[in-house]
């Protein structure tokens, strides 16, 4: 019966081209607008590392206390990064996989003396970073824990940087001149662009990874200044030493906890650490800590910016209006076909048969509308790419799942729009229609 209704639908739509075109256009427009925004929204809202979401954690410590009022705007007012004192303590105390990191800039002097030095973005981190976040390598691998301990001058670079500086060859073991010092290349990353940059949401949420990664301990030694976001409260003191001692928070901290008991014990450890800080006078308030896994962290950080939410509301309201429109058109069509429906009922069609026929017709309109909508979404995304900043540009691309959602949305919307007209059609009394002849 499905095939039958499908063919009937096609035939009926072909018969009244104008009406069909209008219905498809209206649904297409609504789908186009909403899918444009939804594509971007989904790209922003996605979990880039779902397979490890519940094993990667961010610890937070209230190191400012209740009388500091310059709080970040998140739901519990806890700092999103750690201070140097706390980060070092945490690193020292835990034995599992963990990393403390921050981003900085440096000047890279290419081996070719003809080329001018240029700025590179650097991520100072620990060796565990690569394993924790499953970062793919093209050549070589990360440095190891010994390098962390010995503050070695070793680095991992991205594929683009490798192409630019070394011509794309396997540069493992070669030397990189950064900020006037030499670093040994231990590995070259393959393409890796988690969206969003979950490991550092303070700045540049949808951008690329830093060009160079090197040991955190080395960066501290060389006094590489923080380039990302940095929040200070109260006295900062002078110089690099003062900065490290201060309660400025500028370090992103992640720890991998493979099972529930580890999570529980880490939580306990955090609390006892904060309590200890209180005891030794560093904190003057009740300890407040938090431990969130990656998924929770993403939702806590509210990655999707408010304007995108507003655009989503606007475009889905537009879709709603389009559907109401489509419903009106479908109703007009059904009522115009009252005679046909009456005949079918007379010939033995049950109400359910009429329902099926009408809804399948709505579904076919939905499919056509979905295709038009897909086209319009493509155009819409081109528009977005030309209107907004770089970070939007990288997000505004259709992938297969977006395609699927587009078609599904279109078919479901069309069927919803068709519900009332279909109901009217099934309620038609066959006798009345035939008497009117």
């Amino acid at each position, binding site marked *: 019966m499905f095939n039958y209704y499908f063919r009937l639908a096609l035939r009926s739509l072909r018969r009244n081209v104008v009406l069909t075109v209008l219905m498809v256009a209206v649904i297409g427009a609504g789908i186009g607008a909403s899918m444009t925004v939804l594509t971007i929204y989904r790209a922003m809202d996605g979990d880039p590392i779902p397979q490890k979401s519940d094993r990667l954690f961010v610890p937070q410590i209230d190191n400012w206390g209740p009388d500091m009022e310059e709080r970040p705007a998140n739901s519990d007012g806890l700092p999103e990064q750690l201070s140097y004192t706390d980060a070092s303590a945490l690193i020292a105390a835990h034995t599992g996989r963990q990393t403390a990191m921050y981003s900085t800039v440096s000047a890279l002097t290419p081996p070719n003396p003809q080329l001018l030095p240029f700025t590179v973005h650097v991520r100072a981190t620990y060796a565990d970073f690569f394993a924790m976040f499953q970062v793919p390598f093209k050549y070589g691998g990360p440095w190891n824990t010994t390098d962390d301990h010995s503050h070695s001058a070793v680095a991992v670079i991205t594929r683009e940087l490798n192409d630019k500086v070394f011509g794309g060859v396997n540069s493992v073991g070669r030397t990189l001149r950064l900020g006037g010092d030499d670093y040994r290349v231990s590995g070259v990353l393959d393409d890796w662009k988690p969206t969003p940059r979950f490991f550092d949401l303070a700045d540049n949420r949808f951008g690329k990874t830093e060009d160079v990664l090197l040991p955190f301990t080395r960066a501290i030694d060389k006094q590489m200044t923080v380039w990302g976001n940095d929040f200070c409260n109260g006295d900062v003191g002078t110089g690099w030493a003062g900065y490290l001692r201060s309660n400025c928070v500028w370090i992103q901290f992640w720890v991998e906890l493979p099972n529930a008991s580890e999570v529980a014990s880490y939580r306990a450890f955090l609390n006892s650490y904060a309590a200890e800080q209180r005891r030794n006078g560093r904190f003057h308030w009740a300890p407040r800590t938090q431990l969130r896994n990656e998924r929770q962290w993403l939702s806590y950080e509210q990655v999707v910016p408010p304007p995108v939410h507003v655009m989503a509301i606007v475009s889905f309201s537009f879709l709603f209006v389009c559907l109401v429109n489509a419903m009106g058109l479908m109703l007009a069509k059904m009522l115009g076909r009252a005679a046909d429906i009456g005949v079918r009922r007379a*010939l033995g069609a049950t109400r359910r048969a009429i329902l099926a026929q009408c809804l399948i017709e709505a579904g076919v309109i939905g499919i056509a509308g979905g295709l038009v909508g897909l086209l319009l979404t493509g155009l819409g995304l081109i528009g977005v790419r030309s209107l907004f900043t770089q970070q939007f540009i990288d997000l505004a691309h259709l992938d297969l799942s977006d395609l699927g959602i587009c078609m599904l949305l279109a078919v479901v919307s069309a069927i919803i729009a068709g519900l009332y007209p279909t109901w009217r059609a099934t309620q038609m009394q*066959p006798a009345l229609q035939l008497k009117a002849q």
Partner: protein
Amino acid sequence: MLKMTHLSKAYRTEVVETYALRDFSIHVREGEFVAVTGPSGSGKTTFLTIAGLLEEFSGGEYQLDGANVRGLNDNQRSRLRNEKIGFIFQAFNLISDLNVQDNIDVPLRYRGFNGAERRRRIQESLERVGLSARMRHYPAELSGGQQQRVAIARALAGTPRLLLADEPTGNLDTQMARGVMELIEELHRDGATIVMVTHDPELAVRAQREVHIVDGQVVDLGAQPRLVDRAQLHL
């Protein structure tokens, strides 16, 4: 086959209650060809819609092929209509979107026959009405008489127990009308049970017997000799 006893159908508005049929009884046996006549507004169309299970009735009893129809829900009535009744309407009521073959196919689809069965029945009923060659044509491409014959084929395809015809020649010219009536008579000779509603006495005469309705009630003329001189009608 079709037995109505003390059937009534009332239409209620806010103020008034009108009876389209009142204490109406009729018994059509298998194989009979009955004409139902009456002036306009007499209730014969209502009788037809009730007989065809297209409408519900207020009081009385209706038995179709031995089954009591009262209290059946919409789905059950649809199925009964589909299996037991073949309609022939004044306005043909073919679906203009579909060609001849697909038009006849419609009730067969609802019956649930498989593809082969449906094709066989369509073939047979088209041959019966003599229009096999027109299978792929659309209603708009056929003459009135041909359209009505397709409608008859559609009515026959499901091998119904009862044929209900409503002014079958009302929209046809004399020549086509004759052709259609000859077909109907032929069907009767082959054993079909036919109830034909008409206001045309000429047509009524060709049936076995006539049931006359006035103001919703029967005036049964039965098998009595005609009171109307046939010759006079030709003047």
